[in-house]
């Protein structure tokens, strides 16, 4: 490399110098960009002043004054718009994170299924991919929602198993109330997890010295659960439950999975899984068949082959496009408002209507999605860097 280094660049302040022209063009482009931005901003604010439209973010600490149907953190209408936005963001995350996990699982299964030797499995998976990718997501959401709300039993005839109810209100179940003793549970669980991680290290070391791999996953899970149970007992075994109750007209209380949440989750999962399936299929196909033969000749089991040889190579192809699918899923969750799920956009449009601060409210939503997307990409890039082909 070092032998053919180009000669050092000559700096010359002449129009004939390519470097100089480049600098001039870039400065010009930036000036035009910022000029246009400044013009637009100035124009907007002047227009708004002229028409008496009030602006600014002062509204954000005022009481919101509206209730939110389902929340992860408790919310009262006398709390601020900022808190309402956080509740909306929480709801968006709740659907996006679970959706990403489920879509990845389903997408992988379908993607592998498309390569199956079984004709039925292969064609079913192909049909799935074609249908989900070619019907607009909004329509899919509507279909899910109206199928769900029509099919579920009415509240009066709610299906009941103990304190678990299933009706047009969704699934309602008892939820442990947060008590101080639960800190013990959390601590115990963390301790159990720590021991489990230590055990996995020990197991790997033993495999390297003896060639035998002791079981890792099952004991690990058992250790974590055991830790949690011991912690829970140490914390005084708090047993307060929020149990759903049937009133005259409704079922109230407890934790719940509403039809709205279920619709958005199902819709996003099924839709995105179609895309992920194709990415997974492409990833697997990108690994040459010789790799399989090489792994087999080394005496690796089918599972080891998949885990140690095929997957690491396929992942390099899979991760970047799957990252965009995760971003899409998160952003598509903004369609939730169409089926009544109180996500970020839904909360924001209510806030917008009550305060009239359109630019501010939309800017906040944009900033939230941008942050979420950048965070997701950053995490996925980290993972990508770890699984990338390493020069040794």
């Amino acid at each position, binding site marked *: 490399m070092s032998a053919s280094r180009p000669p050092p660049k000559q700096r010359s302040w002449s129009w004939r110098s390519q470097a100089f022209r480049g600098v001039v063009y870039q400065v010009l482009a930036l000036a035009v960009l910022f000029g246009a931005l400044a013009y637009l901003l100035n124009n907007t604010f002047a227009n708004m002043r002229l028409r008496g439209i009030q602006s600014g973010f002062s509204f954000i600490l005022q009481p919101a004054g509206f209730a939110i149907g389902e929340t992860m953190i408790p919310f009262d209408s006398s709390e601020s718009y900022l808190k309402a936005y956080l509740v909306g963001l929480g709801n968006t995350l709740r659907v996006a994170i679970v959706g990403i996990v489920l879509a990845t699982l389903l997408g992988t299964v379908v993607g592998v299924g498309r390569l199956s030797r079984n004709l039925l499995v292969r064609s079913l998976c192909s049909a799935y991919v074609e249908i989900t990718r070619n019907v607009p997501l909004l329509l899919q959401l509507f279909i899910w929602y109206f199928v769900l709300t029509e099919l579920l039993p009415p509240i009066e005839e709610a299906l009941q198993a103990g304190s678990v109810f299933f009706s047009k209100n969704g699934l309602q179940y008892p939820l442990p109330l947060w008590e101080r003793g639960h800190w013990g549970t959390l601590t115990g669980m963390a301790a159990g997890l720590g021991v489990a991680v230590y055990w996995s290290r020990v197991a790997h070391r033993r495999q390297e010295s003896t060639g035998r791999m002791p079981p890792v996953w099952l004991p690990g899970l058992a250790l974590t659960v055991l830790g949690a149970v011991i912690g829970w007992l140490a914390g005084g075994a708090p047993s307060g439950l929020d149990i759903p109750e049937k009133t005259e007209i409704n079922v109230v209380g407890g934790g719940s999975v509403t039809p709205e949440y279920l619709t958005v989750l199902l819709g996003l999962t099924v839709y995105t899984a179609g895309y992920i399936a194709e990415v997974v299929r492409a990833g697997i196909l990108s690994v040459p068949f010789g790799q399989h033969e090489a792994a087999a000749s080394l005496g690796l089991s089918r599972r080891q082959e998949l885990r140690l040889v095929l997957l690491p190579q396929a992942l390099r192809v899979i991760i970047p496009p799957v990252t965009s699918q995760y971003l899409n899923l998160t952003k598509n969750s903004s369609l939730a408002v169409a089926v009544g799920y109180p996500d970020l956009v839904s909360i924001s449009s209510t806030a917008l209507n009550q305060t009239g601060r359109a630019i501010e409210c939309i*800017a906040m939503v944009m900033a939230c999605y941008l942050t979420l997307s950048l965070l997701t990409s950053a995490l996925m890039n980290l993972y990508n860097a770890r699984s990338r082909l390493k020069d040794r």
Partner: protein
Amino acid sequence: MMKSLPRLALGALVAAATMATAPAHAGKTLDAIKARGQLVCGVNPSLPGFSAADSQGNWSGLDVDVCKAIAATVLSDATKIKWTPLNASQRFAVLQSGEIDVLSRNTTWTLTRDASLGLHFTGVTYYDGQGFMVPKKSKITSATKLKGATVCVQSGTTTEKNLNDYSKSMKLNMKPVVFDTQEATNKAYFAGRCQAYTTDASGLASVRNKEATNPDDHLILPELISKEPLGPSVRRGDDEFFAIVKWVVFALLEAEEYGITQANVDQMKTSQDPVVQRILGVSEDTGKLLGLDKDWAYRAIKAVGNYGEIFERNVGPKTALKLPRGANNLWNKGGFMYAPPVR
């Protein structure tokens, strides 16, 4: 860099906002309408009785007739209107940005809206109140029995806040499920997702009549939990056009008070009553003061009839909505409708 991202986002938005918006022409709305040959009117796409289009694209309803009256007044032709169907959360932005001339879309007049959204309400065309609708089979007959109920609401309205206020003050702990369109709200309610549907009582009557398989299966509860004065609004910064819209509605009310109807408006021109003569521009030229001609009110009445006729034709007891005249009767017949004199 991170710090400047929201600014960038703002800029992009502003770009979108300003492209459609040349700087405001104070006092030029009327000129713009005349030059265009069309009044652009923002309406509700699906609230039969107030505004809805039939299969041929002909709009009708109380809110629609207000627009027709304005078009008849300023353009001498009630058909020269471009209808812009709007959902609740778009309506103000569209008016602010100048895409429509007048918003006539069952919109509640409140202080926040009047003072901070860059618009002026011109008056009240329908005195309404928010109510609840429930399926009859639920046996609920009073809103106070809605404890813990799930309630379907359309977003972007004053409704959410009223619901919350009522739920809190009566300790009902109701749960809203908020949809962004009227259609989705209707579907969810009629699929049984919610125990109750809340919006303005007139809206409930309209929805019940249009969407229910059997309107008699649903009951509108007697409690009205809010005051909802509905009326048209115009953009700020054009006092002349504001005055025109305001006085067109007043003229329709005056016409009813003095017995001028769509049918008799031509004969009334020869009436000896000085008030009627003034309204119809036979004696005094009131139109000149508004920047119009003297027949301005005559044309509005000729096009859509007086306020009473508009009410009876669109939402009154003989229509599918069967709304009683009630608070919307004239002041001298027990209602709130009172127009300042046209003189």
